[in-house]
């Protein structure tokens, strides 16, 4: 009896492992930058190109960096919710406009509205490489000391906001 039960048990274990594997999203990679200092950058602002924005400017605040582009379709999904998140006042939201022509980016914002406090222009995607961006939209939560504490790949839909981002932001603000 045991002779037949052991292979069966092994097979079931294999099935469980494969089933878990199927539920995971292979496009979501573990970020290497969690709990590492947010890479520094100084980039021109989209709406005021003569002014710059730097991660350093945000020292002492918990803030959210959202990587977006007008060519990015999934960005359109999260865009309407960005207004709600910004309005909630939970965390200041800044944009990183990724490999976008400024005229396209400005057109997108005037068409759909601008939820960002400001957007920095990463024209050649060099800053995005430093942040390990591999597909927009991506969202980072950076703490008061300038450490990356959370990264989300893909649109920040309300469930992600409620379950992932808001609890993290609240905890970081208490610290």
């Amino acid at each position, binding site marked *: 009896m045991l002779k037949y039960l052991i292979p069966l048990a092994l097979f079931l274990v294999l099935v469980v492992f494969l089933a878990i594997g199927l539920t995971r999203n292979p*496009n979501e*990679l*573990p970020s290497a930058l969690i709990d590492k200092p947010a890479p520094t950058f100084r980039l021109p602002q989209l709406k005021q190109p003569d002014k710059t924005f730097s991660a350093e400017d945000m020292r002492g605040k918990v803030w959210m960096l959202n990587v977006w582009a007008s*060519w990015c379709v999934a960005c359109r*999904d999260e865009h309407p919710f960005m207004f709600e998140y910004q309005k909630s006042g939970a965390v200041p939201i800044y944009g990183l406009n990724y490999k976008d022509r400024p005229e396209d980016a400005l057109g997108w914002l005037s068409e759909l509205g601008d939820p960002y406090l400001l957007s920095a222009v990463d024209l050649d*995607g060099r800053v995005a*490489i430093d942040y390990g961006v*591999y597909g927009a939209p991506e969202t980072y939560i950076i703490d008061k000391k300038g450490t990356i504490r959370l990264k989300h790949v893909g649109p920040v839909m309300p469930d992600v906001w409620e379950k992932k981002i808001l609890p993290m932001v609240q905890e970081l603000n208490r610290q």
Partner: protein
Amino acid sequence: MTRSRLLALLLLCLLASFARAQVQTEEQPSDDPVIEQRLAKLSHELRCLQCQNQTLADSPSDLAADLRREIRAQMKAGKSDQEIIAFLTQRYGQFILYRPRVTPLTYLLWFGPFVLLLGGLLILFRYIKQRRDQITEQPLTAEDRRRAEEMLASSRKETA
């Protein structure tokens, strides 16, 4: 397939058609053949993060082109292959390496197959030994020998 997955697939297809609007930065091969050679070698070891089953060398994606450009620039600045790999793994993690490093996290990956092989050999060995133990040599008794000879003799008679 659930609806959300279908939607994601559809979005992905759309994404591909929209990608044209992305800012294209010209990919300029370096005039230094040594750098191009080193890049060709190194980029075969690295994974494209957008199309995960392709190497950085084969991928036509924009991110891969950006990363190749970055690698060229770093090589030109005199960085070693090790330094460039360190730069990339700091940002994208071990996942970018096609040959993951041997760390406690990847022990199972590297040594798992050998453990399975050893386990299989052990089971095979024990099985053979068990079978061998079941077969015990029994020498013929005088009576057996007499019967056997009788049978042989009778069969010889029949064929004759």
